[in-house]
């Protein structure tokens, strides 16, 4: 442990990874609840176009990725509302456009090629600079502040849009806020796990946590704990075993998910029997309650 911390690059990498592990599940909880588990993936693909644009114009790839993915996030909201298509179709359009745009633009950029994109596709947390860490800290604070300020409204919105409207909430603004906050999170996470695996950190800790919880707040808190532990644990593993850090982090979240599913089943089969006896006079469905939907789109994102 001390050996790992003696390297400056590892200190920076650990800070970045821990922050990403903290922020991604926070916004991820709302995305999963809104049935937009794949939004992070869509935005990630668009961010790639932003990265390429940064190389092409000689500006910071992170900054251009931030702008382009925020615009992409806004576009997806518009497509969702206007075209009245499912969110999945809007996402598909972003996936293809984002990847194609990224590959096309990087080819035009002088001194850059597809290999340049690899660092952003799969992450390169060990090459994080002090400036990158500062950006990650700033954006992470921004995301947490937005969620702290608008969390209650977002809870109502993500449960049921009609009820949010009937409570006078600015539904369009809040929807946009969710998407753009997700875009910011993607850009933060891009350097750590790469755009192709960003969504895993937003979604997998949440679906792992919800196997074990009953409350929205506790789910979010547990998801954050899983996210931070996986990010730091995966990075440490990668340091000692010399594997790709992004992949190690994501596989660790999936392992936690598998454990959580098993633990959740055990807890429910015991608790479910007790609850079934308690509620027996009310309804015969008592024994079957408590199982989470297993068709969760988030569980198959990676």
């Amino acid at each position, binding site marked *: 442990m001390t050996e790992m911390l003696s390297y400056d690059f590892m200190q920076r990498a650990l800070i970045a990874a821990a922050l990403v592990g903290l922020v991604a599940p926070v916004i991820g909880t709302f995305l999963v609840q809104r049935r937009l588990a794949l939004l992070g993936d869509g935005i990630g693909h668009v961010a790639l176009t932003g990265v390429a644009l940064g190389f092409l114009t000689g500006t910071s790839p992170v900054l251009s990725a931030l702008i382009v993915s925020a615009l992409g996030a806004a576009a997806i909201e518009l497509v969702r509302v206007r075209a009245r298509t499912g969110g999945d179709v809007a996402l598909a359009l972003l996936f293809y456009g984002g990847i194609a745009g990224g590959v096309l633009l990087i080819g035009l950029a002088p001194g850059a090629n597809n290999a340049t994109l690899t660092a952003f596709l799969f992450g390169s947390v060990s090459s994080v600079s002090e400036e990158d860490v500062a950006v990650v800290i700033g954006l992470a604070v921004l995301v947490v502040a937005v969620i702290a300020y608008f969390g*209650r409204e977002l809870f109502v919105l993500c449960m049921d849009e009609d009820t949010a409207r009937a409570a006078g909430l600015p539904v369009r603004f809040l929807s946009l806020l969710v998407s753009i906050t997700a875009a910011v999170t993607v850009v933060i996470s891009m350097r750590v796990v790469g755009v192709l695996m960003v969504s895993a950190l937003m979604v997998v800790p949440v679906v792992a946590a919800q196997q074990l919880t009953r409350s929205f*707040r506790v789910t979010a808190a547990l998801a954050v704990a899983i996210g931070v532990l996986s990010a730091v644990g995966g990075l440490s593993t990668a340091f000692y075993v010399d594997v790709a850090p992004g992949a190690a982090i994501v596989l660790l979240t999936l392992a936690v998910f598998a454990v959580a599913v098993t633990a959740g089943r055990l807890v429910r089969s015991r608790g479910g029997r007790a609850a079934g006896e308690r509620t027996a006079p009310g309804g015969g469905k008592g024994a079957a309650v408590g199982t989470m939907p297993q068709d969760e789109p988030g569980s198959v994102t990676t």
Partner: protein
Amino acid sequence: MTSETTTARGAAAGDPASAPPAFRVEGAVVAYDRDPVLRGVDLTVPRGQTLAILGANGSGKSTLMRAMLGITPVAAGTVEVHGTPLRRFRDWNRIGYVPQRLFVGGGVPATVREVVASGQISTRRRLHRATREERAAVQEALEAVGLADRARAAVHELSGGQQQRVLIARALAGRPDTFLMDEPMAGVDAENQLALASAIARLREDGTTVVLVLHETGPLETLIERAVVLSHGEIAHDGAAPRPTGDCARPGHDHVHPHEDGAGPAGGVALPMVTGAEVPRRD
């Protein structure tokens, strides 16, 4: 409801006699994909009235309620809420909306208490913990629907009827003076229907405006002061609640109003009051 909230409400709204109606709808037209669902509906709901909007499936009764709340925009016509055009209406804490069913979204769990407390969204202060009064209002709402002992349960674990009661408690928690409920009895078993009916009866006694979209009046019949029957997007009847006579007066009989077009495949399908029938918890 405590007596202080009732007085505070009265003071805020002015003298009830001169107060504007809870809702004034004029010439409301709503169309989905050019298919008119509401064809110019006029409806004024005075404060404190318990009104039922009845009609067959597809008659536009739910759409009318959604238009009254701005969930569905009107293509033509105007909607005023408590004397203010809907677009400029800001006192959303006065409105308690009970949707047809509880959406559990993407499956992130939420406890009964979390969902009920979210009914206070229009008045909660940002970045602050709930005040003592807010917590008391949540507790009161839970007790009013008989779910105080289930407050820590996850909503997706409850039966359809219990979920319906959670939705009513959520609306109650904001202590509104105007309730809109979209088919609160649909798919609710007889025991829960009685619990709901007594909750609505209490609201009526407190002078709350209650607008109910119903397929049939059922156990709420005695509570309803006025019934509006929609047929093909127009008001076909406005007046006293239609009383079942003869064979229809039998308890538990599916009441289909004569104004309804009972011949069509959609028109004839009345929701039967099957004891124990419940809506699916999610889809």
